[in-house]
């Protein structure tokens, strides 16, 4: 009896300790970023592109990187949902045989674990083959490859957890597979779909290596899909590497902006998701 109580206390202590560790690290990162970055944060930083001498501590901002990151992440998110959602639904046993589904899942898991620099290198090779230069288009394509396994696998897990009887209800009314998928499975999985897309978005907008060669970097705003484009992770990287303290501070400000974007997108989509998931069957 005593042993069981001790076991209970120890395990509970472990859980609280892990939770505390995670929260403390998160708070630590936030504190450092805010503490070091907040003083350089200004409207100019958000709305202006770098002026000459910006990287030596003179005027301008990183609007180029903010716009670039948003375009890259949203573009890649859109593209990867267009491919990922159908794959996630197709992995249901109504569509794919169990063997093919297993092989697809395994490939996605391997892709998930692949370092993003490999995506960058692959994107670069393909780009060179087609005679493209670093551009928004190439960045979006590479980033969407990176997002695809994350999005697809997490959505697919949700779809697979769905009660079989719910689908049977739809089939029993004479619905086809597609009607069942669109009207029932999709709606029921919607909160999970939002989470999956967000996971991929968060990973994508913060990724540096995959867009290093493919999207390039520039001090200007892109005017077409074929222009190179700046991004926040690279803006952080370039600025933090300089010996000038003002510029280093700006790196933290850029990181802060990145965090705020992720926070806003995350909260916003959860809010929208909740609105559309009131019909979900518990």
């Amino acid at each position: 009896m005593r042993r069981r109580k001790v076991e209970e206390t120890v395990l509970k202590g472990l859980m609280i300790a892990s939770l505390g560790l995670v929260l403390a690290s998160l708070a630590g990162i936030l504190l450092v970023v805010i503490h070091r970055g907040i003083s350089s944060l200004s409207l100019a930083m958000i709305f202006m592109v770098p002026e000459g001498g910006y990287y030596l501590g003179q005027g301008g901002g990183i609007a180029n990187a903010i716009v670039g990151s948003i375009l890259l992440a949203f573009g890649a998110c859109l593209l990867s949902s267009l491919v990922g959602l159908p794959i996630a639904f197709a992995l249901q046993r109504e569509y794919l045989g169990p063997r093919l589904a297993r092989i697809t899942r395994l490939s996605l898991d391997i892709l998930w674990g692949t370092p993003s620099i490999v995506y960058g290198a692959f994107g670069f090779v393909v780009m060179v083959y087609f005679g493209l230069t670093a551009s928004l288009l190439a960045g979006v394509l590479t980033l969407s490859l990176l997002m695809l396994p994350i999005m697809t696998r997490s959505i697919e897990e949700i779809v697979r957890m769905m009660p079989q009887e719910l689908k049977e209800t739809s089939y029993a009314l004479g619905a086809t597979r597609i009607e069942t998928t669109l009207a029932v499975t999709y709606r029921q999985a919607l909160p999970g779909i939002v989470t999956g897309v967000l996971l991929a978005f968060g990973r994508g907008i913060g990724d540096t290596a995959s867009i290093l060669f493919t999207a390039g970097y520039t001090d200007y705003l892109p005017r077409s899909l074929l222009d190179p484009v700046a991004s926040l992770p690279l803006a952080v990287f370039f600025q933090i590497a300089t010996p000038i303290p003002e510029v280093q501070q700006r790196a933290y400000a850029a990181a802060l902006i990145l965090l705020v974007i992720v926070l806003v997108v995350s909260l916003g989509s959860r809010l929208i998701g909740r609105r559309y998931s009131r019909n979900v069957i518990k």
Partner: protein
Amino acid sequence: MPHISLSNLTISYGEHRVLRDVTVDIPDGQITAIIGPSGCGKTTLLKTLNRLVDLYDDIRVEGEVRIDGANIYDPQADVLALRKKVGFLSQKPYPLPMSIYDNVSFGPKIHRMDGRQILDQIGQLQKHFAPGGLSGTGEGRSRISNDREMDLLVEYYLRLAGLWEEVRDRLHAPAAHLSIGQQQRLALARALAVEPEVILADEPTSALDPISAKLIEGQFRILKDRYTIVVVTHILRQARRIADYVIFLYLGELVEHGPADFFFRNPQDERTRAYISGEIS
């Protein structure tokens, strides 16, 4: 009216035979109860009648199931049309993840029923059942949606399933918010709305409270005038209350079947007697 006739029906999951050589006719316009201990193949038999068993891996169906004379396992058979003709109620009701209204209109919409067909269908049905108060021109209705016929259909079937009064003010609320008893009646309304001729029900009251269960049983008694109803149940008393005809399965074998009166008064087989007296369960 469809005539359901099973001959030499054998069903196996992989190597395991769930049903063996079942041959029986299911009478029209009556409530047939399939009874037997758990795991005797009742649910499988039921799901064979609308080919829901198709959804399971590794299942093999041998023999014939004829509905209206046509073998529904014929490779040419139209499964979607079959499932429209043979409605299904599951043990635990699963509302579709949409509003109460959309749950009822889901079937008619996927079967592309137009306003004319809907009115004809309700007109036909009303000769049998005129659930009180269906006006057809309620003022509130045009406010809810523009599709007048669909509104009428939703109201009619919700009345027929005995749910209308409880949900008339919140038709566009999520069906998930209903109580489980209400959900089962919603499932009934939803199944009836595609105009089936047969209703299959898999222990439809086992997840419900006694009052909801009684409501469902009551609806079945009303509906059997026009529909052929097949109910799987493991509650003997329920079978006695509602069944006109009884099929008794034991370990995948059809032991005995016959009109309910006769079946319960004069069981022929020893196993049937043991089951009815409660010696085996």
